């Protein structure tokens, strides 16, 4: 895949399921595309003149290039997927590796790496600019401070603490966004989630399946408080019943304790323009870390930025499974990249009806962070 990307001088964006496949630290890797993705991926798709879709059926159709802008080729093992999400000019039914191997020689030779910007490398340097812009936005997002702990920081900081070979399991909720945008997976770190069904309650059973498959590797499961109450708390009992049989007992569970079904709260505001239905979307409080301790596991409760690094260090140094309960801000917006101004205004209006000043302030802040790095080559850009 990388050989073909290099020959084309292309940039990369992935679907949510595709995130673990290629190293996101590559300077031309724009990250995950779509509503929960990065500005770089949105910019890449909006500006590209050619699109090669490899094994992806990404559902966020509004993030694909405007029809007619990009000549599109799609590779998929299942012929029925070809052209099924986005109009393509050429469909290639085949195994990805086989197809790319057959295609590669048809593209020009790989450009020689070096500083001299050959004409064909102009686009690549544009892409690298998109990625650098996103990294700046990312940096300001994770370091934004408010009264309550920033969940983006919690997930971002985890990247630096993941032991080699960690298996990652992710739930559905705001944590899916933070995983997609801010978690940097190392090589050989499989990560899975309920992507197309997007069902809450997947992180704990996925984490258990991963652990039973490879008991010698650490597991980290990332979940919201709503998902933990739906079924994660019960499966923590399964962890407590089995961990003594594991060669590596580390099974780290992150619970984002925000007292809210936050993803739905933001959808209500953004998609419907309605104020959050406070009583319906509240998640009752619960002592997640205390409950872990009660089960004979380790429990850490954190609520401040300075506690995040030490908590991750302690969790992965623990001699038993460890639950990290991060009491975090429910008011951090899940702002999709490069959202139309009208949609942002609709969200702001909903927040005004709620009288939610802290969320509105943060939403404007996120927009400003994006505006500092306008998208090149698309409407509204420079």
């Amino acid at each position, binding site marked *: 895949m990388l050989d073909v990307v290099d020959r084309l001088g292309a940039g990369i964006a992935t679907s949510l399921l595709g995130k673990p496949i290629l190293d996101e630290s590559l300077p031309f890797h724009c990250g995950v595309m779509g509503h929960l993705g990065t500005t770089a991926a949105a910019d890449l798709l909006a500006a590209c003149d050619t699109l090669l879709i490899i094994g992806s059926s990404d559902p966020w159709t509004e993030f694909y290039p405007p029809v007619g802008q990009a000549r599109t080729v799609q*590779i998929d093992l299942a012929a029925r997927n070809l052209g099924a999400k986005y109009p393509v000019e050429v469909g290639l039914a085949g195994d990805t590796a086989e197809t790319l191997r057959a295609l590669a020689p048809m593209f020009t030779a790989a450009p020689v790496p070096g500083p001299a910007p050959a004409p064909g490398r102009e686009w690549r340097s544009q892409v690298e600019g998109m990625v650098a812009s996103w990294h700046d936005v990312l940096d300001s997002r994770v370091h934004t401070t408010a009264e309550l702990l920033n969940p983006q920081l919690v997930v971002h900081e985890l990247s630096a603490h993941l032991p080699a070979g960690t298996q990652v399991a992710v739930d559905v909720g705001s944590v899916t966004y933070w995983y997609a945008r801010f978690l940097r997976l190392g090589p050989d770190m499989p990560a899975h989630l309920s992507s197309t*069904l997007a069902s809450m309650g997947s992180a704990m*059973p996925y984490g258990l399946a991963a652990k039973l498959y490879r008991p010698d590797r650490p597991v980290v499961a990332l979940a919201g408080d709503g998902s933990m109450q739906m079924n994660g708390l019960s*499966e923590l*009992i399964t962890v407590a019943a089995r961990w003594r049989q594991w060669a590596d007992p580390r099974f780290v569970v992150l619970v984002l304790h925000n007292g809210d079904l936050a993803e739905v709260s933001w959808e209500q505001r953004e998609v419907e323009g309605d104020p959050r239905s406070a009583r319906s979307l509240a998640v009752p409080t619960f002592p997640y870390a205390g409950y872990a301790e009660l089960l004979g596991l380790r429990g850490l409760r954190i609520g401040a930025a300075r506690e995040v690094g030490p908590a991750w260090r302690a969790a992965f140094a623990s001699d038993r499974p460890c639950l990290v309960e991060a009491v975090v801000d429910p008011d951090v917006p899940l702002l999709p990249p490069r959202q139309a101004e009208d949609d942002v205004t609709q969200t702001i209006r909903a927040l005004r009806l709620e009288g939610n000043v802290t969320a509105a302030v943060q939403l404007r802040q996120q927009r400003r962070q994006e505006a500092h790095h306008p998208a090149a080559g698309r409407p509204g850009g420079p």
Partner: protein
Amino acid sequence: MRRIFGLAGDGIDPIVAALRRAEPEIELVTARHEEMAAFMATGHAKYTGEVGVCLATQGPGAIHLLTGLYDAKLDRRPVVAIIGQIVSTALGGGYQQEVDLHTLFKDVCGQYLQEVTGPEQVHLVVDNAVRTAIATSSPTCVIVPHDIQRAPAHEHDGPAHGIVRTSAVVTRPRVVPAAA
């Protein structure tokens, strides 16, 4: 297959007992809720690339599997669900825990959904459930009525008229695009 994810119930007592006899070659990993067992099977398929297997009892246990199986269907992963059913002599009689499992699983396990009607049929149904799950990367389902679970295993000789012998052979094709 070394691991089956599930939760016991009197509708699958004979299968659970058979799994005990099969230890340690196969382990029944119990979840607190059948939905979690189905998610574990899907998770197993995702992390390992193998087939995930889950087991649930008739009626409510079977119903609980659905969400986890839909997860496998929508993300295209091979999972086999083995579920109990009330004794075949009482089917259609509005028996305790009787649920129309064919209707319930028809969509999610649309690629292969078969009820075993006699011990002679077990091998071929299990084999086809597994091979179909692999070939279509999707969940499949085997329904086993209680009396069939209790019947002595059938030793095959065959093939003969009406006796289908299968073998657990699975390989993957090389799929190369047609030259443009």
